[in-house]
């Protein structure tokens, strides 16, 4: 009983920080979403759906595509790092994949904005290699640009977690399957991935919620309609001072992410029991 009290006491300061500077303002924003003039109602929500229902679908589709791509790429890279048989390729890949991980989102936005533009370096190279003519070039500064930015930035983070979990697996089952003649792809899918699925899920959920909250990437790469909800919220406040609709949009993206948080909660509860 005494250690429980001590444990709570040790966790309490950090928890108070979260409550005071996140949960209280979060509730203020939820309350604000229902405030219409001097009374409460659903006016902000109907206005949000009228104006931004396309952007809601756009946000979910973009973040989902990005999450799937990040998952596949991190399994592929982590799998090659664990099962690869050419030591030099493994070393090069290990050195290579991590570069974008710590690059700030705002820098990613700036870097890819200049790289992927219609007259950016990527198209310039393709044109001078003779692959495209100047008239065929298209810019990628739309939904594709946002997906590329998210995958570029978040894959190394998930891969780091996944490769770490794969490295601490028991090698004997892998060796046994290898001796029995199983291909490396089959070992990856049937033996390795099921054992690290918990770590993969944690990494993907953290990435999902990060992507739902990033403002700088959609603002810098694709600010025109349709765009992501974060850009809409900033626009509502900066251009209209409309806190009601901004808060309602916040509640909507909150509900979208709450679904994902629930998956995590169920996963950890299953592990504990």
């Amino acid at each position, binding site marked *: 009983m005494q*250690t*429980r009290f*001590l*444990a*709570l006491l*040790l*966790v309490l*300061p*950090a*928890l108070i*920080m*979260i409550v005071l*500077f*996140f949960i209280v*303002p*979060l509730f*203020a*924003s939820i309350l604000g979403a229902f405030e219409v003039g001097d009374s409460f109602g659903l006016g902000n929500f109907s206005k949000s759906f009228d104006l931004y229902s396309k952007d809601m679908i756009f946000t979910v589709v973009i973040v989902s595509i990005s999450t799937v791509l990040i998952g596949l790429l991190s399994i592929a890279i982590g799998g090659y790092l664990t099962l690869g048989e050419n030591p030099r*390729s493994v070393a090069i890949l290990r050195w*290579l*994949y991590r*570069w974008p991980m*710590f*690059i700030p*989102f*705002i*820098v990613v936005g*700036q*870097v890819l*904005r200049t*790289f992927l533009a219609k007259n950016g*370096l990527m198209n*310039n*190279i393709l*044109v001078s290699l003779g692959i495209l003519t*100047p008239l065929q070039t298209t810019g990628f500064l739309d939904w594709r640009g946002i997906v590329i930015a998210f995958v*570029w930035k978040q894959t190394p983070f998930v891969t*780091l977690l996944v490769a*770490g*979990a794969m*490295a*601490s697996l028991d090698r004997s089952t892998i060796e046994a399957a290898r001796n029995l003649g199983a291909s490396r792809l089959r070992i990856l899918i049937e033996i390795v991935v099921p054992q690290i699925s918990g770590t993969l899920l944690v990494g993907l959920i953290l990435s999902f*919620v990060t992507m*739902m*909250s990033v403002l*700088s990437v959609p603002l810098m790469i694709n600010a025109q309609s349709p765009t992501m*909800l*974060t850009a809409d*919220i900033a626009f509502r*406040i900066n251009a209209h001072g409309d806190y009601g609709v901004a808060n309602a*949009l*916040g509640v909507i993206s*909150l509900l979208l*992410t709450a679904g994902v*948080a629930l998956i*995590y*909660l169920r996963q*950890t509860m299953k*592990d*504990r029991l």
Partner: protein
Amino acid sequence: MTAHIDLWWLPRAFILGLLAFIIFGPLTNLLLWTVAEKWYFPHMLPLEYGFTFWQRVFSPRGNAMASLMTSIVVATLTVIASLVLAIPAGYALSRLKLPFRGLILLAFLIPQAFPNLPVYVNIARFFYEIGLNGTIAGVVMVHVTHGLVYAVWIATAAFSAVDIDLEEAARSIGAGPLRAFRDVTLPLAAPGLMASAIFVFLESLDEFTGSYFVGAPVVNTLPLLLYTAGSGGNYQIASITALLLLVPSIGFMLVVERFLRADVLSKVGH
């Protein structure tokens, strides 16, 4: 068999080369922009190179140096405050019996899990009332709240990876709980804690939205400077600022695996 192996270097080299282009192509583009005096379509490379824009950024009238200092001060204070909060919390979460442990771990994810834009707007209003808006302390508090998930989760994993027998051995030969923690558990968990400090530092350096609402225009961090320059269409200034943000990020990337070992990584979030 040998012919089969010999042929495999081709797709391997192709995929690694493609990956290198995907990662370093955009970064090369950034470097070119920092020294491009004149660059327009359809020229693949800049027409003139020079450091005119560097002089403008670092001139007394350019505020890049002040922004850099502000960013470093904010990030350092954020790391100190986060570790002070996360070390006891991580220890309790990994070692002691806690009711609702899963829920408490999840609580630290909340600032990352929910759209933080409307939250920052409401914090800004609250901070304005108590005089914290536009102060370093206000920005640090926002960054600490945002970075606590890394600090607490990695600290918890780091303490979990320390063999509990060592701590109990110290206790059984007469060391008090604080002494056992200070002399045995803390040094063994130090690499993991260092990793969590790195994550928090970079998270603070990266942070844009909160600084924008709580700090601007008084506390002008590097991301704010980058955004202003970029939206003004000044790609040279924006790229130089971006490069300043990149240097510590790349430096930390090169050393992170020394601190974050596989046994700690596999326990993150558990």
